[in-house]
């Protein structure tokens, strides 16, 4: 189903099972109100998150991506979030050259006990993405075909 038109944007979340997914649960248990845009994908560890999943989300039409894992030193697998931190930071700085605002992607650390922090992160991030507005998906077809269907050709404009 398309996201609620005009009200929601597509925001993908990748959460590690042990800390941040638990943190989101804690926020739920405490009935902390949050925007409804975010859809969460549960992964065992932030170290499992290949930054390319995030790229794929943006290519396919996500307007924002949020990654959250255990705080450094608290990784259930000892080192996963350390690798994640480097890879995600590199990716965040990288995407500007692709023409994607770095603010569309954030990564952070939320522990299983930090329900309040989770609420804050989700709320602020969702607002941040709404400020930027929707991100046009990269067309799945060739531009000439796109021009045929839409009647405009970005190559002409350029």
């Amino acid at each position, binding site marked *: 189903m398309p996201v609620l038109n005009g009200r929601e944007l597509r925001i993908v979340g990748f959460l590690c099972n042990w800390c941040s997914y638990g943190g989101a649960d804690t926020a739920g248990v405490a009935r902390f109100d949050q925007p409804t845009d975010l859809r969460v994908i549960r992964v065992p560890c932030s170290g499992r998150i290949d930054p390319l999943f995030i790229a794929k989300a943006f290519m396919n039409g996500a307007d924002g991506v949020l990654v959250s894992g255990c705080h450094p030193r608290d990784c259930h697998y000892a080192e996963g979030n*350390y690798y994640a931190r480097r890879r995600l930071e590199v990716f965040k700085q990288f995407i*500007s050259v692709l023409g994607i605002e770095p603010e569309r992607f954030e990564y*952070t650390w939320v522990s299983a006990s930090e329900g309040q*922090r989770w609420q804050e992160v989700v709320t602020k991030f969702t607002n941040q993405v709404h400020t930027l507005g929707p991100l046009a998906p990269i067309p799945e077809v060739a531009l000439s075909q796109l021009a045929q269907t839409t009647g405009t050709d970005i190559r002409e404009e350029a």
Partner: protein
Amino acid sequence: MLDKLKESIKAALPELDFVMGWGMGYDPLHATPLYMYEPEDVDNLVWGPLNVHNLAVHLPSLKGKKVGIVVKGCDSRSVVELLQEGLINREDVVIFGAPCNGIVDMSKIRKAVPDAHFVHSVETDDNGLTITTDKDTHKLSLAEVMADKCTRCRFPNAVVADHFVGEKREPTVENDAYEDLESFESQGFEERRDFWMTEMDRCIRCYACRNACPLCVCRDHCVAQSRNPHWVSQRDGVRDKFMFQIIHAMHMAGRCTECGECERACPMDIPVLLLKRKLGTVIHDLFDYDSGLDAEARPPLLAFKLEEESIKEKDW
């Protein structure tokens, strides 16, 4: 210098299966990789600004053979990376280095000499090239047709070599200012996206960029042609082509030496190196790391620090 290089190759050849260098190609404007099996093959060796290919790309598939390779400074950094990743054995490779004055960018030549496809003869000297076509003659200074990477070259001499001939050259610059990137990023986000869409649209998915890359070591098992994992489809739309370039770039992060082969090899002249340049500067700034200099170093994305001084995380 070329004679010394030939001598040194001839001396080493008996111990080796062959030595890779460059010879003249199909026309006077194009060199091509030269495989020297016998001493007489060595006589065909050339050295100069037309030696554009990075021969290190062949090394991983030659595992098990003992081979020689002639390298420019930039090529040698790819060799270091391959050594670092254990994809070649140091004792199986004999490296011949010589100082490099820079190589040409064929698309710049094509712009300067629209008749480049009709070339009759080319003379090269220290100052540049004299290109004669069926119609006229063009004198080009090396500076005007030099590959961009050479204008910011920090390593004109091989960083690793068993035999180095000639006098070491001073680097062109001390630091890469990434001016190309800066100017690209002075555009708005939408302009950048549109730029990539038009460029990627042209891609024919031949994967020359990948196969010319000395560090795209997955090659035959690349996710670009796999269903499991199924990262990209075979559609010829912009999305999958762009996605592939992002995959390529990210897989190069912390490994890419910016040798530029991806861009050079592209038959459609898509400026894909820019993506890797971006990652290069990010990696450099974050981890103070330059790839292809130390075979013993641990690449930054396969390592971590408990405290990352350079990473400034978002405060919520």
